[in-house]
């Protein structure tokens, strides 16, 4: 079913950015609409950056070139345009050693055998819904609902780079050593943060990712 084309809600995010809210669902079609709107906004002379979220777009604009009201009108006009064919994201196949410190506890909490957890985590082609938080972090999903768990009650103060983790209906790979509250089920040697590249992130919005179990 095509996504509904209701007029987006546009809110100021301070005085040089705006949040364009297109919906509330974790939904590939809605996310595709966000990617299209962000791409269209980037061509506007007064827009500096446009970043798609799961179901929203954040627009960074130059207030010396356009007012908030003018920006809102431009956003509504562009959001109403019919999107072209979906951009074809790249496919990444990423090896994972399922040896994370939370693997056993996560399987127990989900009432699954470890082998079954691995099978469910490696089965889907995940979509990159959004890149952000820290350089190289990609929000991947949706996860098989049988793997859905709330975040850890107490986040770790440091999670090693390369940790493969799940939380809610999302999965991802920590690109850098950062604090984190997701469940660590494995590790990969594929770097997510690429400081020599521009953008310095292996994964980009709209890409697809499939994990496969490797010996490590």
């Amino acid at each position, binding site marked *: 079913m095509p996504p509904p084309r209701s007029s987006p809600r546009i809110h100021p995010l*301070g005085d040089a950015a705006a949040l364009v809210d297109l919906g509330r669902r974790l939904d590939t079609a809605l996310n595709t609409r966000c990617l299209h709107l962000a791409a269209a906004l980037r061509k506007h002379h007064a827009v500096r950056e446009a970043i798609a979220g*799961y179901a929203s777009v954040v627009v960074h604009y130059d207030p010396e070139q356009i007012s908030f009201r003018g920006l809102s009108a431009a956003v509504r006009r562009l959001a109403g345009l019919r999107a072209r064919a979906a951009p074809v994201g790249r496919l990444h196949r990423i090896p994972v050693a399922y040896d994370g410190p939370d693997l056993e506890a996560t399987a127990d909490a989900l009432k699954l055998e470890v082998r079954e957890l691995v099978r469910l985590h490696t089965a889907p082609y995940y979509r990159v819904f959004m890149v952000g938080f820290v350089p190289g972090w990609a929000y991947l999903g949706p996860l098989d609902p049988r793997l859905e768990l709330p975040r850890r009650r107490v986040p770790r103060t440091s999670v090693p780079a390369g940790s493969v983790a799940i939380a809610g209906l999302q999965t991802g790979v920590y690109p850098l050593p950062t604090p984190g509250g997701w469940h660590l089920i494995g590790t990969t040697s594929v770097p997510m943060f690429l400081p020599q590249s521009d953008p310095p*992130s292996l994964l980009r919005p709209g890409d697809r990712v499939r994990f496969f179990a490797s010996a490590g």
Partner: protein
Amino acid sequence: MSAEAVLRVLKPGPFSLVQDLGRPGHRLGGVPEGGAMDRFALVAANLLVGNSEGAGALECALGGPDLVALRPCLVATTGADFAPSVNGQPVAGWTSHFLAPGDQLTFSGRRQGARCYVGVDGGLAGDRWLGSVATYLLVRRGGVEGRPLKAGDELGRAGPGVRPAVAGRFLPPAGRPAYASPARLAAVPGPHLSRLSPASRRALFRESFRVSRDADRMGFRLEGPPLEITGPELLSFGLAGGCLQVPASGQPILLMADHQTAGGYPVVAGVARADLPLAAQLLPGDELRFEKCGVEEAHQRWRRLRAGLETLRS
């Protein structure tokens, strides 16, 4: 680093970083704009020594470094007042001063504010990453090997020194941000303000908050009346500097220069760009208040603040 070293670091100060106006345009890869916390002070420091606005300069938090000139140069200190001296003689802030080789620029103590900026004619060189020399500690890029200064570092010039070097150029107090503690920050109501309970909504714009010890270049966690959030969790979305997030704990977080580029906590307000320099000069324990402000009014405040810099253009 550039061949022409202009300053040597005798003592680094508590936390001194090379910064510029950051690396906009890379949020798509999760990279924040970064750069100076007090962008006005960095721009003023550069204009005072004849540089372009976004040249590399030093951002010195909590206290200043001891620097010795290796070549003739112009310097200017802006932002926080750390009582600058040249060869032991106190000198005025927001003013360009000539240093001859061997002259020392030192700071005797913190009188006001949190971050002092030191501009040098020609601009400071640094490791360039994604078009900027701004030090980004999380990924250890930019500046001097992506780290704070240490004793013995030599700071290079990015370009030729400015000729003629004009000492004594000055930005009067009327042209500067109205630094104060408690700070009053103009804030535009945010997308999720309606998720605050009515009492919390009133408290946000009426009560005062305090910067907690959990405050760095990424953001300041604030203490004050707990803010009560209602409604389901949000899907993650993009963020901007100055956003005021409210996690479930009810302790708001003010996002600063090196903030995360995405998150899912409700954003209840966004501090106007014109007042982010005031926030950048706060330390743990300092008080602040948020004053409700419309977007257009925030743009006007920005234009008024910028007008103060126009006198520095030669």
